[in-house]
């Protein structure tokens, strides 16, 4: 059977991307606010409860007074899942994305944090380029995920290549050690993305995609759902707590995203996303 081709003018994607950047920058997801209220109530360490309440107040002020949630308005990663039957017309997709980023960061007074070259470090002044990842999927659907992340938590990124024969316990211990060592630096309570398997780069990308699975969702595979529970429980016994001032809420949620791997390899990548988890997803 011959499938029909869906034509999308890339120009129509600009405004949706601008809106997603705006929402992510100023409005903490309501599910996260709900979760932070619960965490604040569970804290027995006074500074921990106070810190969680400050983060809630921060979210309220950001939303009500249009002040960005964080002065580090992030690099922009865009994850695109495009159906194999989509035919794009108009400007090349990367140019449209960068145009949207440039417009949004200027229009909403967001900080421009991207330098054109990693060593010569001249600021591009537009927060572009965005970092775009494209996956071709069956069908004709188009899903765009816009993900903003600051440099402080990005700098705590972790990758370790385990032995394929290492038991899960060894991996858990190592993750707990890495998160405790990062301590206050990535701005806990963290949304911890764990990429397991794939090649090293795939594990890393999966650790970013993982945190956008949905607040409050469980992994579809019970084996990994239990792994997530174990990690959450262990990590919240480290004592790091909100912003490292002590307490229970070191990690708000753990999201694992696994992938097939080579017989000789077992990569594990950690995305220690700060408490200010900023993303939006749209299906077009």
């Amino acid at each position, binding site marked *: 059977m011959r499938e029909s081709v869906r034509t999308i003018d890339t120009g129509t994607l600009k405004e949706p991307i601008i809106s997603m950047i705006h929402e992510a920058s100023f409005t903490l997801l309501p599910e996260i606010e709900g979760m932070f209220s619960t965490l604040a109530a569970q804290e027995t360490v*006074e500074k921990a409860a106070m*810190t969680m309440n400050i983060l809630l107040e921060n979210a309220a002020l950001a939303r009500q007074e*249009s002040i*960005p949630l*964080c002065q*580090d308005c992030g690099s922009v990663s865009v994850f695109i899942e495009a159906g194999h039957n989509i035919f794009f017309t108009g400007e090349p997709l990367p140019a449209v994305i960068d145009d949207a980023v440039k417009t949004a960061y200027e229009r909403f007074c967001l900080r421009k944090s991207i330098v054109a070259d990693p060593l010569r470090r001249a600021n591009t002044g537009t927060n572009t380029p965005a970092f775009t990842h494209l996956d071709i999927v069956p069908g004709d659907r188009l899903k765009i995920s816009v993900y903003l992340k600051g440099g402080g938590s990005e700098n705590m990124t972790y990758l370790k290549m385990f032995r394929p024969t290492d038991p899960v316990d060894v991996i858990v211990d190592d993750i707990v050690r890495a998160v405790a060592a990062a301590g206050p630096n990535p701005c806990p309570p963290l949304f911890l993305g764990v990429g397991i398997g794939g090649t090293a780069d795939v594990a890393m990308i999966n650790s970013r995609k993982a945190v956008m699975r949905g607040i409050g969702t469980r992994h579809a595979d019970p084996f990994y759902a239990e792994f997530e529970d174990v990690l959450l429980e262990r990590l919240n016994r480290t004592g790091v707590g909100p912003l490292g*001032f*002590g*307490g229970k809420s070191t990690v708000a949620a753990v999201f694992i995203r696994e992938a097939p791997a080579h017989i000789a390899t077992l990569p594990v990548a950690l995305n220690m996303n700060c408490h200010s988890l900023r993303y939006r997803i749209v299906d077009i």
Partner: protein
Amino acid sequence: MNVWKKLELPAGRDTLRGMRCGDMYLLSGVLYTARDKAHQRIAEMAARGERPPVELKDRFIYFVGPSPAPPGRVIGAAGPTTSSRMDPFTAVMLEQGVSGFIGKGKRSAETRDLLRRNGAVYFSSFGGAGAYLSKRIITAQVVAFDDLGPEAIFRLEVSDFPVIVVNDTLGGDLYEQSLQQ
């Protein structure tokens, strides 16, 4: 136990001696911002025997790169950035007379030792609370390195700006304490 104490800025090192890690302070007065590139420039100037562009004696340095001020506002979001990136510059900033540093996250063993030996204090503010903290800033002006954009040196007048002592003059460390508890 956890009560907010008030501190007026500028504040010399002699006034910081009694502070202990975990103490919470509301700062009011003037402080200066600096992050990576401003520190690098001050260090380069010091190496040439030049004075920094602003007098830093008894001053607090706030590690921050604010987001742009929207129309009608003093400043955008203005929470602390990660302090460890400024560790290589602790010695030179202390030589300029800086008494307090505000950021977030851990300091190197070398920085902690320098703070202790010089009687200076490192505070954390609230990382990722950029909107909340912007409300505690009354005035903001760029006073040096204008070309650096968000990395310029700003003179900030703050009112009840909340910070917690992380590294005190006795070598105490709040983050290590919280891990041990």
